[in-house]
């Protein structure tokens, strides 16, 4: 094992992994984080805390992770390149490892234009692939990006994101291969609604043997309303929401749409589980953490194995 991560142990044991997502509050309210962590506990192997998602100021990922860890969960810090240069990134890597956090997801980050401080200066000193390599070199070579050595390395299980749906489609697998070569241990994908396209992407992943080098967690999420589905289809860059998904939600009475959204999520989990090379799911019930226990149970993914307490 490279780290103390529970997620790493679940994946190495060959178990189908489940990770969840905890949206941190736009305030210093620790109770919200604790409440959400309690909902996720026992239903996920590890949980992500987003890092200023959509470029909106929220509680720092590492801080909410630490609160969740106090509730007995294995946290995954999300770290974006939008707000930190290579100096700040490496300092945070050392800090989160020192706090006992075992997992980190390396992201480029949503552009500041989309957030609540659009006049902010973006940093983007390094990109997500360079960040993966930087953390890998820190962990495995005990080297900073500049080449200098450190005494105690940050033992982090390194994650990266992949979007099987964005253009250029053929290049998306090549980009995944770069993330793997850079040192990613696990991948969490963009939310999947177009299962056929995801399956096509996974075939290209298998053709390159990438599924044997990295653990791929398929991104899934329940949809609460028809409006939310339409919003994701038309307004969220890099999302692929087929018309059939919207039609399915439109086909039930209004008061049953959220229930149908949960069922759709369960169905997608069943489908992606059948695809060779999928090592688990990343369940993003954004601001709907209450849906997680129901989905995980109905998908037959309980009880969760527990390796690290």
């Amino acid at each position, binding site marked *: 094992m490279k780290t103390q991560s529970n997620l790493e142990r679940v994946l190495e044991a060959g178990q189908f992994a489940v990770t969840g997502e905890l949206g941190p509050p736009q305030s210093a309210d620790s109770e919200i984080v604790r409440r959400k962590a309690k909902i996720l506990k026992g239903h996920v192997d590890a949980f992500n805390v987003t890092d200023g998602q959509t470029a909106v100021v929220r509680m720092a990922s590492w801080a909410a992770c630490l609160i969740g860890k106090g509730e007995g969960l294995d946290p995954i810090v999300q770290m974006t390149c939008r707000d930190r240069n290579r100096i700040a990134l490496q300092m945070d890597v050392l800090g989160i490892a020192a706090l006992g956090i075992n997992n980190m997801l390396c992201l480029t980050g949503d552009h500041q234009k989309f957030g609540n401080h659009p006049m902010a200066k973006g940093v983007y000193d390094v990109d997500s*692939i*360079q960040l993966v390599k930087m953390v890998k070199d820190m962990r495995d070579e005990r080297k900073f990006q500049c080449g200098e050595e450190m005494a105690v390395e940050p033992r982090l299980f390194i994650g990266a994101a992949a979007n099987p749906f964005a253009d250029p489609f053929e*290049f998306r697998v090549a*980009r995944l291969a*770069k993330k793997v070569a850079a040192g990613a241990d696990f991948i969490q994908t963009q939310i999947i609604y177009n299962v056929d396209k995801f399956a096509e992407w996974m075939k290209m992943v298998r053709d390159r043997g990438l599924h044997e080098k990295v653990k791929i967690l398929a991104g899934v999420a329940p949809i609460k309303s028809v409006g939310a589905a339409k919003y994701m289809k038309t307004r969220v*860059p*890099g999302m*692929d929401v087929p018309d059939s998904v919207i039609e399915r939600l439109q086909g039930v009475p209004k008061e049953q749409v959220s229930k149908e959204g949960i069922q759709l999520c369960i169905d997608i989990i069943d489908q992606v589980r059948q695809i060779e090379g999928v090592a688990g799911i990343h369940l993003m019930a954004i601001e709907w953490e209450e849906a997680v226990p129901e989905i995980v149970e109905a998908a037959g993914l309980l009880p969760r194995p527990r390796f690290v307490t």
Partner: protein
Amino acid sequence: MNAQVQKPFEEILGYLEGKERIFLMGCGGCATVFHTGGIKDVDEMAEKLTKEGKEIVGKIGLPFAVFACYIPMSSMFLKEHRGEIEKCDAILMQSCGDGAQAVRGYLEEEMGIVKPMYPSNNALGFSSGGPSKFKEECQACGECELGRTAGICPLVQCPKGLLNGPCGGTTTDGKCEVDPTRDCAWVMIYKRLGKFGELDELSEIQEPHDWSKAIRPRSLEVEPINLLEELKGTKKVIETLGV
């Protein structure tokens, strides 16, 4: 070229408040192309300021291809107009900030003339194209990446400056999430490399960019060119082109 636009006239007048005798200077380079400091633009500014009650004690409209920022050229004109410049209360520079500061420095350090100097333009930086449409393509970072990015600079064309391929926000029709009217820089790079059959190059992990080359202010020393010889050469070439 250094793209530029003129400041609002009210802002220019604000700078010149209390300054009655004004000296104007334009630029025969970028400012001429962008209509912010060509000979005609200097004349127009003189007329407008006169209407506002200012006295124009002198003006330099530099001929096309004579750059205010290039001292061997602009200094010839400055020396010629020494008397007028000495009489003025303020100089209005119709150039980019480069031209303005080059002239300010030369006047002060080489000609011993210390006068308030104000800009009439806002410079927008390197841009290419013309005669009417221009776009930003190079940010003069000091460490050119074009050799590993198919001749398209992602530090400029990608709002996130990514060096290892597109982010997850590229729209399904290959547009940029930050500005969907623009092509994703990495889709352009991908397509271009495909034309050469060099898509394999994209599998190489590119190291972080060396921003130490962009630490400001930068300065440089070179062997001077022989200006008159160069101009003669240009004249000859233009004649052969039949322009």
